């Protein structure tokens, strides 16, 4: 479960949860530090929302504990946890106005009315909804409803705020704005956020750490930089940023380095991190190469990059800020393309399709992932 320090606010795990025959969570453990922005990231059905609901108290895990602020809250109902949730579709009370929604939790706790109105005013100001106090929630736009839901959740000053895809229903432009705003708000309040999303870009923008979920498992937990620069599994490499995933055979090689044969064809030598353990020679691993780390050169150019593959330009898609290039570089599997990203529009020349090129990669840009072929 990692080192639990005084900074640890929430500790969960190892969680398992099944609904009928379907196993939703398998041995998921994670910790959230005070004031941290933690994102649970993964495709739909990966278990991230179930984890959030277990933290909130809406679901009970089959096994595993939820420790909040040093106290075991696994069996406590939601209303006895110092945690508030911003729901996916806002879940605002339609029979109350904006101020009534924001004040809901405070009134339940019998906070004196004078303080309720002071804190509601303050919370609405924080989410930039001053002056909306007596508006009906049904008259608000999606973005405004989202702000009311946020105000309602932060007004009680929980130590931990849970957000379940809160920006999912907003359009792209508004979502980008709200991402920055949420991040700023979180920094100012110093409340820890556990944020659920399936959008890897959103996760990268906002998080201190990201927990990547896949099929009920926690695949990797780390900072955005770690997740991007050192993905541990092919799922993480592909889901975050996208990657070319290949199968490689381990060949006998010197210590500290990995000699691999890529897809049975290209032999490469890449550096090995001290903590990485390779299967014995003859075993197979998966490797990933980020498209933006693949450089493409015409035959008459001088390539840089230690690993070079002869390749054929098969397709090129102009994306505005660059090109996505599809290269054929395996004689045995011509359909298994190497995807490269290049800035500018240099390769948006369709006359060039079919010409021989050189694909070059730096050895440290080849990530060694999980074992293959099990």
């Amino acid at each position: 479960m990692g080192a639990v320090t005084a900074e640890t606010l929430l500790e969960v795990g190892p969680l398992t949860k099944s609904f009928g025959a379907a196993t939703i969570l398998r041995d998921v453990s994670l910790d959230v530090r005070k004031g941290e922005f933690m994102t649970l990231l993964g495709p739909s059905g990966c278990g991230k929302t179930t984890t959030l609901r277990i933290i909130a108290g809406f679901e009970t895990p089959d096994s595993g504990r939820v420790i909040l602020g040093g106290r075991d809250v696994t069996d406590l109902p939601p209303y006895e946890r110092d945690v508030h949730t911003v729901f996916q579709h806002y879940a605002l009370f339609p029979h109350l106005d904006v101020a009534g929604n924001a004040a809901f939790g405070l009134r339940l706790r019998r906070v004196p009315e004078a303080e309720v109105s002071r804190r509601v005013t303050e919370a609405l100001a924080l989410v930039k909804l001053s002056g909306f106090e007596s508006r009906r929630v049904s008259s608000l736009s999606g973005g405004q409803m989202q702000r009311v839901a946020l105000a309602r959740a932060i007004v009680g000053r929980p130590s931990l705020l849970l957000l379940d895809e809160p920006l999912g229903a907003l359009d792209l432009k508004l979502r980008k704005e709200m991402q920055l705003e949420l991040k700023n708000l979180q920094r100012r309040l110093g409340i820890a956020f556990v944020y659920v999303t399936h959008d890897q870009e959103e996760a990268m923008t906002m998080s201190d750490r990201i927990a990547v979920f896949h099929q009920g498992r926690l695949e990797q937990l780390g900072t955005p930089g770690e997740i991007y620069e050192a993905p541990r599994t092919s799922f993480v490499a592909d889901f975050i940023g996208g990657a070319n995933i290949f199968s490689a055979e381990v060949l006998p090689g010197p210590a500290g380095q990995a000699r691999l044969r890529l897809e049975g064809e290209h032999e490469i030598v890449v550096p090995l991190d001290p903590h990485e353990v390779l299967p014995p020679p003859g075993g197979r691993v998966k490797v990933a190469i980020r498209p933006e780390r693949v450089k493409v050169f015409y035959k008459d150019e001088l390539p840089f990059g230690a690993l070079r593959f002869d390749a054929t330009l098969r397709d090129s898609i102009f994306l505005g800020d660059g090109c996505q290039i599809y290269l054929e570089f395996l004689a045995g599997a011509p359909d298994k393309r190497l995807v490269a990203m290049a800035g500018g529009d240099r390769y948006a020349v369709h006359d060039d399709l079919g010409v021989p090129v050189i694909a070059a990669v730096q050895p440290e840009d080849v990530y060694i992932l999980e074992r293959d072929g099990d």
Partner: protein
Amino acid sequence: MLEKALSRLLAGKRPAASHLLLAPAALWLLLFLLIPALGLVALSFAKNGPYGEILWRLSLDNYRRAFDPRYVPVLLRTLFFAGGTTVVCLLLGYPLAYFLSFRAGRRRGALIIALMVPFWTSALVAFYSWIVILGKEGLLNRALLRYRLISSPLALLYTPFSVLLGLVYFYLPFTVLPLYASLEKVPRSLVEAAYDLGATRWTAFLKVTLPLSLPGVVAGALLTFVPCLGDFLTAELLGGPRYYLLGNLISNQFLMAQDWPFGAALTVLLLAGLVAGLWGYRRWEAAA
């Protein structure tokens, strides 16, 4: 050709054409509701002849008679029974509807059908069954006597109790179904949001579920109260003449007293009251 015309009609391409869809029902209501109702209004201004024939000498006499003090007890009794039935139906029906919507799970379908059984049973059969149960020699009295819970038979039938029982029995589905429909519409995420903000089950119910189901409470109350005002079979079979209601007064004008114009005037007044009530409800609903 016909098929093409019909599909265009169903698609509502031309508004005038799609209104044709309304025609069958509209025609039916015109022939069998609106025209007879207008006839009734006309009749209410006529005069009753010595042999029960109708004399078309128009006057407000029937209405004047309707407001005679001796009919006040019938009106009050009717309001009492209709109101009492509504209250009892709400008290019994709300927990039932809540259970169906929030707790019944997979048994829900079967339970709703069970709830509808009295609704599908002929009222006559149902009320005669109640007579068999409640009578002096009835099943209930015999059981109580056998187990020595009472020493002499209780007077259950032909009492306010039996009238109320019959009305509640018959109108409970009318209360429960709108309640159930409105509880179904309460988003469960709102209940969760209330828990999340610190509400216990009970406060979440009071502050979220109950206020959001109020339209169902009002609709259920109206659907119970309004037909109770015109009910005559229950009082006829389970109450007897001492507990006659407005419905009995009206039906007696037509069937016994042979005073159709006066019966028509009473009907028009009842109808006017109902329409006023429904109009008020619509205004309340639009404002909410």
